[in-house]
């Protein structure tokens, strides 16, 4: 089973890296860029086929390590 965990900064948390990327995109004349927020993506291979168990395990993984909930939100998507 494949899963994808996406970790993003919470609203209101300053993201200087996103700002720098935003500036670079603008300098490349990419049209219409309003703002950029940088996040992280984790593609995770899981054994077993119980989706509910996988979701619970990945939620624990996010809370324990993948995200720092002081500044970050996370989203878990389970694939096929």
């Amino acid at each position, binding site marked *: 089973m494949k899963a994808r965990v996406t970790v993003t900064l919470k609203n209101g948390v*300053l993201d*200087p*890296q996103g700002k*720098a990327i935003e500036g670079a995109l603008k300098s490349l004349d990419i049209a219409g860029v309003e703002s950029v927020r940088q996040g*992280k993506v984790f593609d995770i291979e899981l054994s077993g086929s119980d989706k509910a168990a996988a979701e619970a395990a990945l939620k624990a993984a996010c809370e*324990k*390590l*993948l995200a*720092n909930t*002081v500044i970050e939100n996370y989203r878990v998507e389970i694939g096929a």
Partner: protein
Amino acid sequence: MKAAVITFPGSNREGDVAKALKQAGAEVTHVWHGDTELPAGTDLVVLPGGFSYGDYLRTGAIAGRAHIMDATRAHAARGGYVLGICNGFQIACEAGLLPGILVRNAHLKFVCKRQYLKVERNDTPYTSAYAKGQAIDVCIAHGEGNYIADAETLARLEGEGLVAFRYADAEGNVTPAANPNGSLNNIAGIYSPGFNVLGLMPHPENLIDSLVGGTDGRGLFQSLVGSKRAA
């Protein structure tokens, strides 16, 4: 005082802090991050500076989950001293020993320079050798030293007097211009509510010998060793 200095993969300031502790009269043992127990009779656990796990994921995130951190949290819960310097401060925050988090410097640059700090209070185990409000001359060297916490946590830190050091000018004035990384309220270091855990981004262990340009860092280690004797 018996100090245990933890070495993580990527720590690089464990030798310097050990030297500073020995100079102040402490007995130092080096402990590997994979160990599960601290040496018997440990008074102080030191999380040294460096780049543990190459700063992968988030600074201090992986080291903060190391086996030895369970023993370190138990030590802190018993009232034992824990000192986290630079990457050690980041590790302490990630391990839940201190609130908040250190994020990328607001200007995105790594800063490596001499920096004055204002000593907020001198009635703690870490600062008794300094004067309240004293400006001390230490070093900073970090890319992720921008301290942030939610409004409630920040209000609690300020309200309970848990800010240890603030970035300041040579006269001890805490100004925006003296803030090297964007930290909220110029915060350079914070205590746990019991004042037994201290995390700070600057390196007091760099300035312990006039040979390298200053000795203002000595006070912190002398305070710690002295507090043990007094206890």
